[in-house]
């Protein structure tokens, strides 16, 4: 089965602290993985994708096939990072249909 698991519903950190949002997946083969973010009262938007291997807003995510994980990390959290974060993968055999995790709400406190 193809599945994305985000074990934490809520993650609360203080400003300046490191943050790691966990994502594990179930997929046979090479998945195409993404992190999406939804800020308060804004649209869901793409944060980063693993094939780009880029850093966006200080966030990075590395695909670990051995652990089937794609954790999102930032060394120093900012208050404006507070949002809902969703990990997703493209369903095999589809043309881009995304399977989402249930999301993690990140709260960065001053």
């Amino acid at each position, binding site marked *: 089965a193809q599945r994305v698991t985000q074990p934490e519903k809520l993650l609360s950190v203080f400003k300046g602290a490191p943050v790691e949002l966990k994502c594990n997946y179930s997929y046979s083969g090479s998945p195409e993985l993404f992190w999406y973010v939804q800020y308060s009262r804004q649209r*869901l938007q*793409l944060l980063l994708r693993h094939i780009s291997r880029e850093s966006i807003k200080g966030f990075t995510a590395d695909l670990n096939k051995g652990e089937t994980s794609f954790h999102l990390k930032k060394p120093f959290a900012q208050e404006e990072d507070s949002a809902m974060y*969703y990990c997703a993968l493209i369903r095999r055999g*589809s*043309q*881009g*249909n995304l399977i989402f*995790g249930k999301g993690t709400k990140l709260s960065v406190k001053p």
Partner: protein
Amino acid sequence: GAGVSQSPSNKVTEKGKDVELRCDPISGHTALYWYRQSLGQGLEFLIYFQGNSAPDKSGLPSDRFSAERTGGSVSTLTIQRTQQEDSAVYLCASSRPGGEQFFGPGTRLTVL
């Protein structure tokens, strides 16, 4: 240019009524997706359109749900005989083939 737009932004209806939700994709985007965001289930894929190809309806939860896309642009998601469990935010996204999906603001559906 303008992003994906959806209407209405909010819809309250009575159980058993039919509703239509509209999505206007970004101009030039041939791929269009509908997702549902609910408290219990998170974000779920519903249906996908790509150009003139037959839609991928594999995510529709029941035969009460249907969608069409006219002229390769605007899409309408129809829910017949609404039930309380249909209450959710319905999201539309569009993309170029294989490209980033851009999401609309969603329609919040409440079934009383």
